[in-house]
């Protein structure tokens, strides 16, 4: 039988993952997109357009209108005009519209996922399994509250909407952030003007088409595209509330310019989260959690676990495991469903990450990067670990917003808490231990809006999310996320 058994030897076995790219056929892109104002796409008064590209190929996907102050004012007027009828609608009727948006998102989930990946560079497995389903879940969740508002905050008086909400969202979770902003605003009876990020406007514009299909009354949702100036114009426009997610620097500027204006404000800003691994942690799962905590969405996550605090006795073994695991991370075409780490969102962000990593090397931290081929075109950065990091290094203090992990050690629980809190930020933190009492002890002492125990980067529409200190104020998600969109004095301003 030996003839049947022997196989030619020599050469590496052809074991590997076949590229499994998601087809882009499902996405039908227009050549250019106007501003979504009053229920239709209109030409910008500014007369200006800008290209939006795919960061993984650098190809132009479409041209998008750039809204100036006049355009923004037009959008806010449309929202203002739509307000009385939207607020007068029976709450259950309003809920129907929001449910409709949620269902449409599910219907067109694949289209949204592919477009999100094309425009933002994130792996398709994340846009498919996280961004789009969570966005739909937020609309479903808040739709449910629309006709139950008077039961949501007992003893607070009659709830009513705030009015027109100006909402400015970042490029890391373009569709999901739009959902976080729009879902509670609409459910509470507000109208909205949404400004997506300059580099990632396309899924918001696809969402505008969903608004049309769902027959959302004209003007209830308006979407204006543009860069920082457009955002600034929205902040200065005649809106009743500003909700902003983005950098701390811009958040501070917004707070300055809204001060004294009577506009309500919620800010969800940067972070430098500590992921704290204790000696008794489930190590293999902690490794996955640490990897997910920092390399999820290329580290473009405000709550990313960018500082790893490891208890000294397990430092060596954990570091070895992390390095091993880094070797199996697959960096490349984000449309391939096997890809773990996609493209950096923009050239500007790539430059910023490279500059901070350079500073880490210069300040004396030890860098580790796995060997992996990077595509020639597009914006890419190798998953990076730094050891020998101290609290004073820039890579331990500043938000890198990229796939770069700074590893520090600690000896005692007190030292872990002290180091974790020793940052101007306070958005999230992670604790890895088998000891339940230690989880509770740590969670109560960490100054962070979200504390994950034995997991990281988990989100749910029922769970509030937001920061301490320079990570901002106000919460999104859950009842906490509904409150900023409500007044309790009997009506709008």
């Amino acid at each position, binding site marked *: 039988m030996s003839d049947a*058994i022997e*196989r030619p030897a020599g050469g590496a076995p052809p074991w590997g*993952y*076949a590229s*499994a790219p998601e087809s882009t056929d499902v996405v039908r892109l227009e050549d250019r997109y106007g501003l979504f104002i009053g229920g239709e796409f209109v030409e910008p008064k500014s007369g200006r357009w800008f290209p939006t590209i795919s960061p993984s190929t650098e190809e132009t996907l479409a041209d998008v209108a750039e809204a100036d102050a006049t355009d923004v004012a037009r959008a806010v007027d449309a929202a203002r005009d739509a307000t009385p009828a939207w607020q007068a609608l029976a709450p259950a009727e309003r809920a129907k519209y929001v449910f409709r948006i949620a269902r449409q998102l599910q219907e067109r989930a694949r289209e949204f996922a592919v477009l999100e990946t094309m425009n933002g560079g994130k792996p398709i*497995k994340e846009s498919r399994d996280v961004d789009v389903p969570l966005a739909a879940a937020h609309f479903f969740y808040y739709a449910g509250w629309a006709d139950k508002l008077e039961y949501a905050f007992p003893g607070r008086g009659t709830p009513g909407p705030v009015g027109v909400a100006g909402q400015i969202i970042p490029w890391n979770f373009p569709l999901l952030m739009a959902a976080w902003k729009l879902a509670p605003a609409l459910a509470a009876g507000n109208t909205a003007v949404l400004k997506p990020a300059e580099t990632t406007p396309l899924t918001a514009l696809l969402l505008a088409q969903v608004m049309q299909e769902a027959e959302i009354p004209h003007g209830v949702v308006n979407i204006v595209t543009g860069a920082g100036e457009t955002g600034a114009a929205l902040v200065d426009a005649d809106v009743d509330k500003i909700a902003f997610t983005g950098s701390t620097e811009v958040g501070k500027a917004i707070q300055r310019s809204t001060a004294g204006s009577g506009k309500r404000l919620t800010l969800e800003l940067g972070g430098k989260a500590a992921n704290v691994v204790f000696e008794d942690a489930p190590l293999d799962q902690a490794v996955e959690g640490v990897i997910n905590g920092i390399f999820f969405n290329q580290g473009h996550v405000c709550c990313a676990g960018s500082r790893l605090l490891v208890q000294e006795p397990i430092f060596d073994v954990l570091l070895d495991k992390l390095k091993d695991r880094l070797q199996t991370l697959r960096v490349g075409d984000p449309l391939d469903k096997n890809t773990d780490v996609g493209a950096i969102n923009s050239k500007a962000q790539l430059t910023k990450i490279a500059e901070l990593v350079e500073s880490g090397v210069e300040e004396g931290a030890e860098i580790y990067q796995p060997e992996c081929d990077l595509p020639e075109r597009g914006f890419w950065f190798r998953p990076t670990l730094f050891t020998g990091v101290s609290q004073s290094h820039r890579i331990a203090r500043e938000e890198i917003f990229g796939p770069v992990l700074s590893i520090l050690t600690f000896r005692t629980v007190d030292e872990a808490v002290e180091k974790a809190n020793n940052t101007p930020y306070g958005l999230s933190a992670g604790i890895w231990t088998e000891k339940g009492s230690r989880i509770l002890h740590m969670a109560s002492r960490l100054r962070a809006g979200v504390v994950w125990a034995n997991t990281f980067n988990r989100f749910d529409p029922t769970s509030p999310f937001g920061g301490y200190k320079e990570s901002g104020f106000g919460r999104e998600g859950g009842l906490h996320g509904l409150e900023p969109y409500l007044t309790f004095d009997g009506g709008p301003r």
Partner: protein
Amino acid sequence: MTQAAEVSSRTPVGPVATAPEAARIVARATAVDAVGLEGRAASLATRSIKREAKVWGLELAIRCMDLTTLEGTDTTGKIVAMCAKAMRPDPTRSDVPSVGAVCLYPQLVPVAVEQLRGSGVAVASVAGGFPSGLGPLDARLQEVRDVAAMGADEIDIVLNRSLFLGGRYAEAFEELVAAREAAGRAHLKVILETGELGSYDRVRQASMLAMAAGADFIKTSTGKIGVNATLPTALCMMEAARDFHEQTGRKVGIKVAGGVRRAKQSLQYLVLVHETLGPDWMTPERFRIGASSLLNDVLMQLEKERTGHYSGPDYFTID
């Protein structure tokens, strides 16, 4: 020389710890988080294996297969037929490899030894009071010695879950060390019966105990209870084997058994092996799949890869 022959001619190893040390190893085993473990296993199961890699993986699955029959109704005729299938899974194609081993009850070992002589396919026998492992220790050890003497290349025994779950780790360990010694030159696979252990923490502890006692393989299940091999359980055992290798330099094999019926499942297990333990474990020497009905599905998938279309079940022999 074939892989299976290499396996059976290797020198057996002894335990790496004393019984009291083994008890401490179990008590101090690293914790396992069920949610994280299951999440990781599920995400690895979505990796795409296609074309050359798929053909190579399917052929490896055959080479790693312990073609198994463990029924009270097994007869000489049944074993003769199964051995023929084991040596030449697809009579129409000589390029399909033989399976790694046939796995059967002790009484039928001489039949298989006779049938498989010189074929490179190993003879594996269950022993040690399979499937409960709760007979008198002397009788269980004698059974291990007997099947080794009859010419079994590999012996699958069960962990004494009564001792293990009762916290009597040192005694459970000593039983395994004795079984390892009784097996002589035969390869010892220790079945943890993970479906009865109750948690992944326990699976990891049992894995560590068996590896420290000198097991050549740790195996998920007997196939005789409701819950058999699952991806997360196998991943848990692989992570234990990875750490054991890191700590001792010893490479212990993994055998999944029970409920693996589809070619796709076998590829998913291979993905887990490669991601967790690396290419050194992608061989019948360190990875096995115990199955009775998997083979024909693998053959059918291989045929589909070669011809582009599926054949009906009647085109594959059912021995």
